[in-house]
């Protein structure tokens, strides 16, 4: 999704009003309860929250020009990888085997066999259509953020095709955009 992404794709950047800001905060807090203690630091109430609208119904949530979260249409907010690296335990985690790393880092979606093989690992509770962190075998940090297409159980039983959509991965356009403008 962010394979080719640059500041050119940002069509509008608005400082959102307080009510919208509250809504964003609330949905992030709901989605990532682990983030609640530090939410005040991440999204300080005083400093302005900026939402950048991009192509393909994509929204970026910026604080001090740093992109922290993104979402599509009215979908769930997902943290950027830089944020996830700081707070790795806020998301459910999937792990892919070593062979899959290079494809994921090229932007490929995550196929089921890469998650079910000995090198992979699944969080059993994950339902379909939830954001997950994609970890890798033998690595400490997340390498991508995905959006599940099937539930973890289905991934195990079907074991074929795309299990997780790759939303944001290391070294993609959003990763390279450390700050906007």
């Amino acid at each position: 999704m962010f394979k080719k992404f640059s500041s050119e794709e940002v069509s509008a950047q608005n400082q959102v009003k307080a009510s919208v800001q509250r809504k964003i905060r609330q949905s992030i807090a709901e989605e990532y309860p682990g983030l609640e203690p530090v939410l005040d630091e991440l999204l300080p109430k005083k400093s302005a929250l900026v939402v950048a609208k991009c192509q393909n119904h994509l929204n970026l949530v910026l604080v001090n020009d740093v992109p922290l979260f993104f979402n599509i249409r009215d979908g769930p907010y997902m943290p950027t990888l830089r944020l996830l690296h700081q707070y790795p335990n806020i998301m459910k985690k999937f792990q892919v085997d070593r062979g899959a790393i290079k494809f994921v880092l090229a932007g490929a979606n995550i196929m089921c066999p890469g998650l079910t093989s000995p090198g992979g690992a699944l969080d059993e509770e994950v339902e379909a259509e939830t954001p997950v962190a994609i970890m890798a075998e033998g690595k400490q940090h997340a390498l991508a953020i995905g959006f599940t297409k099937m539930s973890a159980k289905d991934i195990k039983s079907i074991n074929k095709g795309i299990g997780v959509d790759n939303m944001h991965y290391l070294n993609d356009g959003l990763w390279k955009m450390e700050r906007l403008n």
Partner: protein
Amino acid sequence: MAEKPQPVRVLYCGVCSMPAEYCEFGPDFEKCKPWLIHNAPNLYPDLIKLSNAKEADKVTEQLQSTGISSDGATPSAPKQEEVKRLPGGKIKKKEKQEVVIEKVIRNKRKCITTVKGLELFGVKLSDASKKLGKKFATGASVVKGPTEKEQIDVQGDISYDIVEFITDTWPDVPDTAIFFIEDGRKVPAA
């Protein structure tokens, strides 16, 4: 979770910006290696051995005059040509810096001169079009040409002295880099 989770500090590679452990899958592992040896030696233990061995080989192969520093931080091939890499790992060719001038005839006896490629020399196209218009007393505009490239359209046939004008106004543009298109062929102007 009552306690505040502290942000984890991740070691990012100074070359490719990825977390250091992912450098091996990065766009250019070779370039990252010196940095890694220097900053994250425990991540890739075999790398140091390897590089030391390699450098030792090199030294013996080449003249045995200069002693190599033992920290291994010296890049092995600094003179390699810089190539821009696309996200797919493909090598992007550097665009040739040239200005192409073409005369397009419309309405039989009227024509438009298009100038392509001025932006490759760091020339602002809107400024350039204004200057061209002023100099030749015609309309000149920046137009989006084919394949999303911007070009300058100037009304009238000005190919006779546009070369001189370009080299005079923007000394960065050498006249060897200016080409005409005549009968579908590229002809150097100078």
